[in-house]
């Protein structure tokens, strides 16, 4: 069985983000970059399938600048078998889905597992677009995954408003991971040392013969409005009145 997983390079969620001077993005200087946390969950799930099946190969792919090698090394150190870096200059979700479609055609995986969204732009689009392009079944926001039929089909549990939804579908398929699917492992020192020797293929996106132009333009990026200072109330009655009349939460 072959599993393709994604690893997007995103700012560390612990990093304080500032909007850049011209208001078109974020100030990148001094930021620590990590694997998108939802992609880490996807990698962990792929590794668990591999450990359960014994024979599976986990291929990790990242689309972006050469700096994405750092995130691919992290995935390899966690236990992925090899990595693919697709060089592309600031691709939008549509372009990434086109690129991944080509990678899937080359690799022919049985399963694609991705994070449900990246924490930088929160687009939540690539998984769905990739499944549509491939004509494969998709299961998004999954919190449980079970393979059946010798890896020929899968059953997923999705968290939906007010409950859980269970889906069953044949493979190959595209799955996007939600927060509660698993808890990712940390890269061990033996894993880190092995990762150095694992293969990492580099592909120039322009060689894939696809349209890479952005389908959307970021017009502006603005920080959230600053929260107003709190105030100390004199009594419980005043607090209740404020919660009812001003905050309107009671």
């Amino acid at each position, binding site marked *: 069985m072959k599993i393709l997983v994604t690893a997007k390079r995103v700012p560390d969620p612990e990093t304080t983000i500032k909007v850049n001077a011209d208001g078109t993005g974020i100030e990148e200087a001094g930021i620590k970059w990590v694997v998108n946390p939802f992609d880490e969950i996807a990698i962990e799930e792929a590794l668990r399938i591999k450990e359960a099946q014994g024979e599976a190969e986990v291929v990790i792919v990242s689309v972006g600048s050469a700096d994405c090698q750092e995130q691919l*090394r992290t995935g390899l*150190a966690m236990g992925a078998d090899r990595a693919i870096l697709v060089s592309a200059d600031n691709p939008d979700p549509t372009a990434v889905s086109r690129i991944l479609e080509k990678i899937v055609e080359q690799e022919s995986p049985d399963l694609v597992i991705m994070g449900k969204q990246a924490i930088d732009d929160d687009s939540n689009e690539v998984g769905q677009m990739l499944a549509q392009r491939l004509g494969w079944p998709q299961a998004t926001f999954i919190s449980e995954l079970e393979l059946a039929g010798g890896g020929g089909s899968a059953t997923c549990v999705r968290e939906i408003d007010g409950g859980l939804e269970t889906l069953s579908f044949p493979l190959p398929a595209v799955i996007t991971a939600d927060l509660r699917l698993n808890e990712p492992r*940390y890269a*061990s*020192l*033996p894993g*880190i*040392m092995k990762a*150095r020797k694992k293969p990492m293929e580099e592909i120039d996106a322009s060689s894939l013969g696809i349209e890479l132009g952005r389908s959307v333009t970021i017009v502006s990026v603005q920080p959230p409005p600053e929260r107003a200072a709190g105030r100390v109330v004199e009594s419980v009655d005043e607090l209740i009145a404020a919660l009812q009349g001003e905050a309107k939460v009671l």
Partner: protein
Amino acid sequence: MDFHFNEEQLMFRDSVRALLERDCTADVLRELWAGESGRSDGLWSGLAELGLTGLLLAEEHGGLGMAEVDLVLALEESGRACLPEPLVETVLAAAPLLETLAAGGGTPASVADKWLPLVAAGEARLAIEHPANPCVADAHVAELLLLLADDGSLHAVARAQVELTRQPCNDAARRLFTVDWKPGDDSLLAKAAGATRLLDAAFDRAAFGCAAQQLGIGQKLIDLAVDYAGQREQFGRAIGSFQAVKHHLATAQVAVEFARPVVYRAACSLATGHTDAGLHVSQAKAMADEAALLAARTSLQVHGGIGYTWEVDLHAWMKRAWALEMTWGGSAWHRGRLADAVLADIDNKPREGQLQLQGVN
């Protein structure tokens, strides 16, 4: 020469930091203090899974055959998290000593073959008695204790064969014991003459480990104070904006920054077997101790009255800094060791061949 840590060493540091930020929080520390053992098997096995407990051990014992340079950043993180586990005693002092002894074959080899793979796998902790320390740390959770007999010989004794008496310590996480036991021929690892050299080497490795932890402790104490100084307001401004506060914090930060490369140098000297490795360790221990103590004093001062309370986390790191300063040689002893070497060089006399460890503290 490139003195930067490589990508793998930094990635390993990040893994250890992430694990400790998740599993060794201030709340977890408080739970452990209240527990009988004060230790967490889950935390210890988590560190072992990352490769920390077997990092210095040879592959034949289940280890990774790596060096102190690969370990130093993880040790710093363990201080930053105020990790209560016996990392220094097990990983730096006892296990490498046992491995060195095993090269000679006989009883030490069979002891090492049995216990070191368990240490690497996170299934055993070790405790070690040393003339530098009046008590044996973490003897209550160590499956095997390396103990000194009255004649100076070194013995390996299972915990079930000893009687432990807990001794008080200002650090609630630190568990210290005196040990009653009887040496026997079957427990003998090395006679006094052979044991001394090994104990000296263990002393240097452990003192280095404490120094690295003190860096992390000092940094955490400064971070806590900076965070507090940014929130606490007086005269309508955050107290961190006042020079009387921020200059003190900057001074503490400078002390930590100046100690850091000295500790890294000690790691390199131990890893390469430098002839002056012991002196480099003493430089590191003295500077890191003093930086951590300054950070503790400054952090407490910045916090003011609330810094004295049990509810504020500050005291966990502060008391650890105090405790480690008194462990494996205090900063005064290490400065004395350096002074002796410097004066011997000036007088063109041979340096002392062995550590004079009686009364180290």
